[in-house]
């Protein structure tokens, strides 16, 4: 027996890889029905032509998250040009390889990793901004530890830690490059400048997708958390 709350919070662990937000916050879960141990979720996206690779990842991840509850899980994607192929592939427990070309496919793994890294960069930029806002000397950004950062900006530091866990990056520094190395010397200002562009891009895309979803389905979504 699965509760609807448990199913909803399981879906809340599934993120749009590109927008780095839970699909439940993005309004992508159109319906969720629970009957005994059978759970069915219908997902919807902002456009008919949203990138099929990301769509496939979200449907497959949602299916996995619900199945992990011990439920008989069914997840279907609505109103998408590749709905049929994606739904058939995920329902048959196929991996991306069978449906289109490979979930364990190195290219798809690399694609996911690219967006995990971008999300990590953007989260660090938000942290750096919060730290300076909380009074930290900008020169200390090179050396401040994540533990110290968590005392000054707990939410932003926790967000960085979550993304690092997903990437398997182990470092004590609050800010680091993609390899976990300290941003020493002259590297920091340019790195931060580019990180800001990454953050602007992700936040902007999330807002645009949200607006398009509202237009497409005539919705008024609650404000983002």
């Amino acid at each position: 027996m699965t509760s609807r709350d448990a199913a909803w919070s399981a879906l809340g662990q599934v993120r749009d890889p590109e927008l780095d937000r839970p699909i439940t916050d993005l309004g992508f879960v159109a319906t969720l029905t629970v009957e005994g141990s059978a759970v069915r979720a219908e997902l919807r996206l902002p456009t008919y032509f949203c990138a099929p690779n990301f769509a496939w990842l979200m449907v497959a991840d949602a299916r996995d998250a619900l199945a992990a509850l011990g439920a008989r899980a069914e997840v279907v994607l609505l109103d998408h040009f590749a709905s049929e192929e994606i739904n058939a592939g995920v329902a048959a427990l196929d991996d991306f390889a069978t449906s289109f070309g490979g979930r364990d496919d190195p290219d798809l793994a690399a694609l996911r990793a690219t967006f995990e890294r971008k999300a990590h960069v953007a989260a660090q930029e938000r942290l750096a901004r919060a730290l300076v806002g909380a009074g930290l000397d900008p020169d200390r950004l090179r050396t401040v530890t994540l533990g110290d950062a968590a005392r000054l900006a707990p939410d932003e530091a926790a967000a960085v830690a979550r993304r690092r866990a997903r990437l398997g990056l182990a470092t004590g520094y609050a800010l680091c490059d993609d390899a976990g190395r300290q941003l020493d010397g002259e590297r920091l200002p340019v790195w931060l400048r580019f990180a800001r562009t990454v953050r602007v891009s992700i936040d902007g895309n999330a807002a645009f997708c949200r607006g398009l979803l509202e237009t497409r389905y005539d919705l008024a979504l609650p404000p983002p958390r």
Partner: protein
Amino acid sequence: MYTKDGQSYFIVDGHTHFWDGSPANQINRYGEGFIKCFYDYHANLSPAEYKWPMEHFERYSEEDMIHDLFEIGYDDIAILQSTYLTDWYVNGFNTTAQNGEMAERHPGRFIVNGRWDPRDGENGLAELERLNERWHLAGVKLYTAEWRGDSKGWKLSDPWAYRYLEKCEELGIRNIHVHKGPTVYPMNRDAFDVADVDDAATAFPGLRFIVEHVGLPRLEDFCWIGTQEPNVYGGLAVAMPFIHSRPRYFAQVIGELLYWLGEDRLLFGSDYAIWQPKWLIEKFVDFQIPEDMQGEYGVLTPDIKKKILGLNAARLYDVKVPGELQVHEPAESGPIGSSPEPTAATA
């Protein structure tokens, strides 16, 4: 031309369409899905008084277009971009010939851009020569996500694409507009990836690559390429309409672009009929970076706006601009673009 507060702006609308997306022209559900997707863009980002009913949006008349662009829309010159999509639309979405015939009825108003598709091989090269002879092309619009039979797209770095870029150089077609769409297969790759533009821009320094909608949703990747390649430009179609619904986001995007590419490499485009130039131009001229963001992004001067709204495109397309509408003083500060390589966060 648009005049406000004693400043006059010469307008080159770098991205316009004269399309037929009507049901009568649709071949399949993809054609239907495509125009509906455009319509949602239109409906989501347009001010209420500029929203059209779907039937009008699918197929507007030539008179509508002339009225919206030139009679009320302030455009001096509009660039017609060709988008074929012949697997989805019976007569194509808007072909070079359709655009060209319309342009010939309105001398001096339009620049007609052609297109090519590397999957057409040798025949396509000959067709490009014919198109150029007939329509005197100064540019082309490339749609890398276009479906063709089993193929769901191509890359600028494909060997056959290089053959076509060589042909463009030979014919003097120097402006290469690149539209990145979301539907490229194989689906395990990132369809919005702009890395192939980087390769082509390096290989063809004599051509200019205008990346439409400034690489959105990959703004950061586009900015990065812009710092590496001096012949990469940004078309602001899709980005500029945020000025109405999300002005603070627009301020960030334009601020980022000015930082990385500078004021000489950004081109206005309405993407008509998705959006109309009238309100975009009025709002852009009135726009300023919000005060609390000016420390990061600076301010938009009238000269910057003049360049973006028309002078930059006029330079690329050899359009004569009356002397009093030119900007004479050099840019105050150069972009980061041509400076020694910075270290990217995610490169």
